[in-house]
């Protein structure tokens, strides 16, 4: 029983550690450097920020 709890909490700690590792990797990799550009990364030149891309069929956008 104790071993089971050790396994559960142990893996929880390992998960936490892997999250911290990923966070350190992200910071070192410059992921946090320019966040305003990051927020814009999903927009393309033909689907730019400021333009909706979806509407009901019979209504214009």
């Amino acid at each position: 029983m104790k071993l089971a709890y050790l396994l559960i909490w142990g893996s929880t700690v390992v998960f936490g550690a892997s999250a911290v590792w990923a966070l350190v990797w992200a910071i070192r990799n410059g992921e946090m450097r320019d966040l305003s550009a990051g927020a814009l990364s999903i927009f393309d030149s033909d689907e730019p920020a400021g333009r909706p891309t979806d509407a009901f069929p019979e209504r214009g956008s």
Partner: protein
Amino acid sequence: MTLAATWDEPSSVPVDEQATRIQIDRSCRPTVLGYYASAVFWLLFGSVAAIMASVKLHHPEFLSQWDWLTFGRVRPVHLNTMVYGWSSMAGIGTLLWLQARLCKVPLPYRLLLPTTVGVWNVAVAWGVIELLAGNSTGVEWLEFPLSVLVMFGYVLFVLFGVSLKMFRERRVQHTYVSQWYIFGSTVWFPILYGAAVLLPATGLVGGAAWATTNWWYAHNVLGLYITPMGLATAYYLIPKVTGEPIHSYHLSLLGFWTNALFYNWAGTHHLVGGPLPAWIITVGIVGSMMMFIPVTTVAINHHMTMVGHFHLLRTSPTLRFTVFGAMCYTAVSYQGSLEALRSVSQVAHFTHYTVAHAHLGMYAFYTMIMFGAIYYVVPRLTRNEWSSPRLIRVHFWSCAVGIALYFVALSWSGWYQGLMMNDPGVAFMRVVEYTKPYLVARSLSGVLMTMGHVAFAILLFRIMRSRSVHLSGPTLFTTADAEALGEAAHA
């Protein structure tokens, strides 16, 4: 410039973004459509099982002449087809498409991935047969036999590999917030799933430790698998459809990392009052309260990104479903944290109140966001438009009114059910009689939601079958825009 040339020289030639998107959508087509079509099949199947189980609660004799349709079998069939059939398959389809789009690379393993659709379907179907035959393991969320769970595990580890491969070969420097959530589902979850399935097989776990493993797993299915798929989708679709970048990108990242650190600790709150050392439950309660931080970041972001764009809810089906889901995410998460408190749990635990909460999460939040995603993704994969705005409205309103009725009826009756059950002076049968009208309301709301699902299935069947409208550019709902984009793509 040809498409091939664009891919061969990414650094020297400006990438035609529209052509890239089209190529990515094309690469996703068989796999993602396979996952979506299967998901909707299991949604219908699970809805029928849901109505059967619900009716049995107020009319126990309903279909009780066949042992394979008794409550103890139909109810887990409902839960497992909804979790592993509908939710998983809709989520996997969406995250594969999202990861390909965000990495700006076509979906790899074009032969292997469509076969995983088959493997997953066979696994769910086999599991359903086993449950109906009475061979449930009796462990909630893991009722399917080990052979089925091994098949799921195989696909989850394929997704693990595919997701990392796309990330390694990505053509975008920045890792968008949705991708972090996708990693939650594709990297953390398979490991956790493996641990939860294998741990009992070691023989080390029994009794209360078994229950702890069970709820640690079941809660993490929500936190590290379902929620990340829902939030990854919302964080992509809300800004994409409105054209408005996320209100605060800082907060979105803070939300992800706090979610990654805290959610995993919260599972044992399901065992409040159970025969476990108090500290184990207290850890779960503390973890649950810490969840206020990530939930608040998501709530602020989703709401503030929508400010000034609420009028789009009238025109965009994707946005209407997704925003409905995002709002319910905030509601269900705050409610969930509060339910972890011992004083609240004392009343709400083992009542219909918890069932209402579960549906607010799995349906009002997650399922509605997945509907929104499918409304956005499928036209771009099939190059067809949805056939009927009226059916989309029927779908939305049946589901929205259905889940609202469900939530109010069960939350109200569940809370009073809890208070009455805590009072030794109230006879148990009186409590049962009290809840009956609310259980009838629950069945009615199930029928309403199922009507919405049928409308959705008709729409999906038509759009996948129709070959009438082929567009060369990304499909938009308004024909004028779509034609203009089509011409731009040829120019």
